[in-house]
């Protein structure tokens, strides 16, 4: 075994932060190496140093036993390093072949034209060699996310990459696509390529990697062989303390129906039906989970329920009252709380301090507003109460929301919404981009609210999360509920198939007899 890439004592500082602190990372050729850590642990920074996007303040980058200095990605590419970013670097209206060859186009007629046939052939050859199924003439905007990711990999291979860096490659994939990706890893390493992938998911690191390096606060806190470690050990390395991985949940004690949606259909801005006749019911003291790959209508459904978007048709009732026509404000006043999927866009005003942010949604109601005037003293007490109760750090009500970490922003939102003592909570991706510690806390809060008798609708693309928290679990695909299942009995594979739009026999019939929730449709596909 030889070392393909060796990062030796890398230190990278940004104003006020040490993103990487003397990190050592040797990677063997022909292996899969996972770089595990929480958000902000410095994983991406480290890989950007290797890819020439950042230059390290200290330390050496050694590729194939030769010390290198990369000023630009071009230098890294020339040294055989390829990087697939979390957000794909693809040009949507161009074809696969055009994207793969961009910047290194084969030419003909003395450079007067791009040799498009040669570009197509190169893509086909690469596909044959590594067993990809990617149509070279298809346009990027017409292919699935999984295929787009293959195109990114092809791009790196076309440029002669021996070492591939993938930043959070599974974030946008269905469980099946993730499996396919890991098979691609095997194929690539069999042919001598080296893979480094960044992840914050323990299970993936253990499943796909040969070796795992854990970063915490910019430091390498341990490199372990994947088959000699446990999830608990990795979690402890990541967080620095013992973590409860499984949510401890008491059985639900559901009461009366608190929220019901009947036949909700939503069209998006382009007039395309993105939610098709979805019905659901949430009872007091239970969590209804909605699982699904992002972009299958969950956002639009949630916006329709919370009053941010007008559905084409459908009735909504909250605690027995018809709220279909209610404005956002009236829904809030009727006891509906909302933890939005994007805290930057919808949850907080980043340039406001926490006092002002704590007021959002309550700006009309006493004691904060009296005869059109705001009481800043009450608002401040309110914000400080949230900060105290929900452990928001730093505990400073005058801090700008944008200066907080993602986890603390999210805890503040949860606190603000729960402080209204809601009957019904819609929580969408409540722990996306949130560190493990805060995730644990937010999960406890959601279950606590359930146990106090509120209904919770939880939407998440993270299977562990929806399975762990939900009492009933609906799986959404292409705007419809594929099935409503019992999360305790269903397997991950079964959910994965449902998420991909396949309906395996038997799952939806025997698992959950609850009426009025599952859409009885069989005509899909």
């Amino acid at each position, binding site marked *: 075994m030889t070392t393909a890439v060796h990062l030796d004592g890398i230190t990278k500082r940004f104003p006020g932060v040490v993103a990487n602190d003397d990190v050592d990372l040797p990677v063997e050729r022909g292996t899969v190496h996972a770089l595990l850590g929480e958000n902000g642990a410095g994983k991406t920074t480290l890989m950007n140093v290797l890819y020439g996007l950042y230059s390290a303040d200290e330390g050496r980058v050694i590729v194939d036993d030769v010390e290198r200095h990369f000023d630009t990605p071009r230098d890294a590419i020339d040294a055989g390093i390829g990087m697939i970013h979390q957000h794909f670097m693809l040009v949507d*209206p161009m074809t696969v072949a055009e994207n793969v060859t961009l910047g290194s186009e084969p030419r003909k007629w003395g450079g007067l034209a791009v040799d498009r046939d040669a570009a197509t052939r190169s893509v086909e050859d690469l596909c044959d060699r590594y067993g990809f199924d990617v149509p070279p003439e298809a346009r990027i905007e017409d292919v699935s996310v999984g295929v787009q990711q293959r195109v990114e990999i092809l791009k790196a291979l076309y440029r002669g990459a021996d070492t591939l860096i993938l930043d959070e490659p599974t974030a946008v994939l269905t469980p099946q696509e993730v499996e396919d990706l890991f098979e691609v890893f095997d194929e690539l390493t069999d042919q001598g390529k080296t893979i480094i992938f960044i992840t914050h998911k323990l299970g993936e690191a253990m499943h796909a990697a040969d070796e795992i390096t854990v970063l915490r606060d910019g430091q390498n806190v341990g490199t372990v062989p994947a088959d000699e470690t446990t999830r608990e050990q990795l979690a402890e390395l990541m967080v620095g303390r013992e973590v409860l991985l499984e949510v401890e949940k008491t059985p639900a004690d559901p009461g009366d129906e608190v929220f019901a949606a009947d036949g909700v259909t939503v069209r998006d801005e382009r007039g395309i039906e993105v939610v098709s006749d979805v019905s659901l019911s949430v009872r007091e003291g239970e969590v209804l989970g909605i699982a699904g790959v992002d972009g299958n209508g969950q956002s639009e459904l949630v916006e329709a329920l919370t009053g941010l978007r007008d559905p084409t048709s459908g009735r909504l009732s909250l605690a027995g009252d018809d709220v279909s026509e209610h404005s956002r404000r009236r829904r809030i006043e009727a006891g509906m709380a909302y933890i939005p999927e994007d805290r930057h866009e919808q949850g907080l005003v980043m340039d406001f301090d926490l006092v002002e942010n704590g007021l959002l949604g309550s700006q009309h109601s006493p004691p904060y507003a009296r005869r059109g005037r705001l009481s800043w003293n009450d608002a401040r007490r309110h914000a400080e109460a949230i900060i105290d109760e929900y452990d928001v750090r730093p505990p400073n009500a005058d801090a700008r929301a944008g200066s907080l970490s993602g986890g603390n922003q999210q805890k503040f939102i949860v606190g603000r919404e729960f402080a209204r003592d809601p009957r019904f909570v819609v929580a969408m991706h409540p722990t996306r981009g949130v560190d493990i510690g805060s995730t644990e806390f937010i999960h406890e809060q959601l279950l606590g609210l359930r146990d106090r008798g509120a209904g919770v609708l939880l939407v998440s693309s993270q299977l562990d999360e929806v399975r762990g928290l939900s009492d009933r679990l609906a799986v959404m695909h292409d705007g419809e509920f594929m099935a409503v299942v019992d999360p305790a009995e269903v397997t991950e594979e079964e959910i994965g198939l449902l998420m991909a739009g396949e309906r395996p026999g038997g799952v939806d019939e025997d698992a959950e007899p609850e009426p009025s929730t599952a859409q009885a449709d069989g005509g899909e596909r």
Partner: protein
Amino acid sequence: MSEATADAGSDDSWLSMDNSRVLVVGSVAVALVVLFLAGTLFPDSTAGALVDILLLPSTWSSTLTLAVPIALAAVGGIFAEKSGVINIGLEGLLIISAFAAIFAADTTGSLWLGFGAGILASVLLAAVFAVVCIEFRANQIIAGLAIWLIALGFAPFAARIVYGGPNTASLSNSVPTVRNAGIPVVSPVFDSLAETSILGPFQALFRASPTVYLMFAVAILGWYVLNRTKFGMWVRASGENPKALDTSGVNVHRVRYAAVLLSGVFAGMGGAALSYNVGQFTGSGQTMVNGKGFIAIVAYLFGNYNPIGALLSTFLFTMLEAIQTPLQYAGIGVPRTLVQTLPYVGVIVVLALVGRTRIPAAAGDHYETGEDR
């Protein structure tokens, strides 16, 4: 939804059109067919007069001549905007080059030098725009308006200093057409074709100024460069996802500079051709350019960023203008100002009804290596 499907309507077919354009072009075609039928059946009716006018070689000649500055500026605008820099200053580039061409031709006595000076002036002004937008991150719309206003003020001012009024002197020697340029073989062939009456309105093609052929050449070349060459690929990537281009090892700033300067070259050709055609630069009011740079923007939006499409939509607009005067002679008076709004009405219909003009995703956005957008 998740299946990989190759789209039939690829940008590569040079007349790819979506529904809204098919609708507009289709209804124009239907109207024309109806008009021609009515005109042939009832030669003495209004329709008959209209058909006569539409088939006049002189109508076609002015359609072509009027199109030159607009189409050239439009192709330039396509390059700039495809690369991610919206060049709303095309109007200014036309003004400055229209003046500079006459001034230089008048001073040096050489039409060639004058034409070159027009291009140079436009490129210099485009370079100012490029530096301000690309290097100093100015808002492209505001910078583009500034370019227009600078030219709108400067050209008549310079004319006043040199010639004592808003208008320049007239060119002493006008631009020869190919048919009377005295080129062996070519000129006699053009001359005889220009007089061959069976060609009907196509005679206009052989009576035209050389700038008309330049316009055709630039539109075709523009399409080729944009869709078939490496540079064109980079321009398109730069306007859609500059980061993708950057991570592929191509300098986005350089591509954008090249594209904006190219828009200066083409608009400069257009401005010089405009004033050469008239024989002088007139600088009162909105100057002789009088909104042609903005019509150019409309034309390339209407043509969906396709140089050939932009050329054809330019013809649509300029033909409307070309039939103005003969219509008034024929007693069918439609107010000129009303007809001049038609291109804008057309583009609003296309943009609003279906809105399928595909603006480059990163158009108007500044790009800097290493910054997250």
